[in-house]
């Protein structure tokens, strides 16, 4: 059980108490990075503390970090830190467009995006 989000008052505490005061994730997570709960995460779900439980429940269906932030009503950066922890622990897996988040999509990917948009 997580020690910082186990009570009803969890939503009333200042956001950074949820992250133990940390403001950065150990992983570089773009806000559009897709997060999905792993089998290990499923197994750990029942014992997870409130915020972690909510994130892992939500990400059974793949969600972006931004969606995690929006649905849990927590700041984007807080969502990043919490998701980053879960990634470190193997409880969720993350999918980004490429391994270097700062890179723009290459031509091949852009062509696929174009095809997808034109089919809308």
């Amino acid at each position, binding site marked *: 059980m997580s020690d910082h989000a186990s009570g009803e008052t969890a939503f009333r505490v200042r*956001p950074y108490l949820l992250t133990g005061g940390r*403001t950065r994730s150990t992983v570089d997570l773009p806000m*559009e990075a897709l997060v*999905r709960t792993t*089998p290990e995460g499923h197994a750990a779900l029942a014992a997870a503390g409130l915020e972690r439980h909510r994130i892992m429940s939500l990400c059974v269906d793949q969600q*972006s970090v931004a969606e995690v932030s929006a649905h849990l009503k927590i700041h984007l950066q807080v969502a990043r830190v919490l998701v980053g922890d879960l990634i470190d622990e193997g409880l969720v897996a993350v999918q980004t467009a490429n391994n270097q988040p700062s890179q723009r999509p290459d*031509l091949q990917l852009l062509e696929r995006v174009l*095809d997808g948009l034109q089919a809308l």
Partner: protein
Amino acid sequence: MTNVNPQIPVKIVVAGGFAVGKSTFVASVSDIDPLTTEAAMTKVSEGVDDLGDATKKRSTTVAMDFGRVGLSSELVLYLFGTPGQDRFHFMWDELVRGAIGAVVLVDTGRLDQCFPAVDYMEQAGVPFVVAINAFDGVLRHHPDDVRDALDVPVHVPVVVTDARHRAAVRDTLVGLVRHAMTVAAAV
């Protein structure tokens, strides 16, 4: 992993002045009701180094609207509407990182409001299109006049759109992706 179909996320930024129709634009193509995420400006924001002034220590929250468009079983597009004011530039760095590019929405009645976005995208080297939001189908200025007024480089497309209509928004996004492909091919 149980991932049958891991999707790849891509992102487009929708920028522009206050109340120019960014949220409407996003909502017109989004598969989900647009969501709002909040980012705090102090402490949690990376790259903010100039907050020495004690009066600014209190946290300012900036809200972003965003939507999601499933493009295929493998691709999902996120559209982020960004606050257009100068003081939120710190957030644009974060937003445009890894983005396909940006749509700068323009209301020809308030052209000056999109100057910061145009300047920013140009300086940051982000592929962008200028999209004139023709409310009620009324185009008050010719795209060429808007191009001149904004001093947009020749290679940057200036298009007319209607943020309320899915097809018009889709065509604008197609135009941006085509432009981004031209930019990517030229590198």
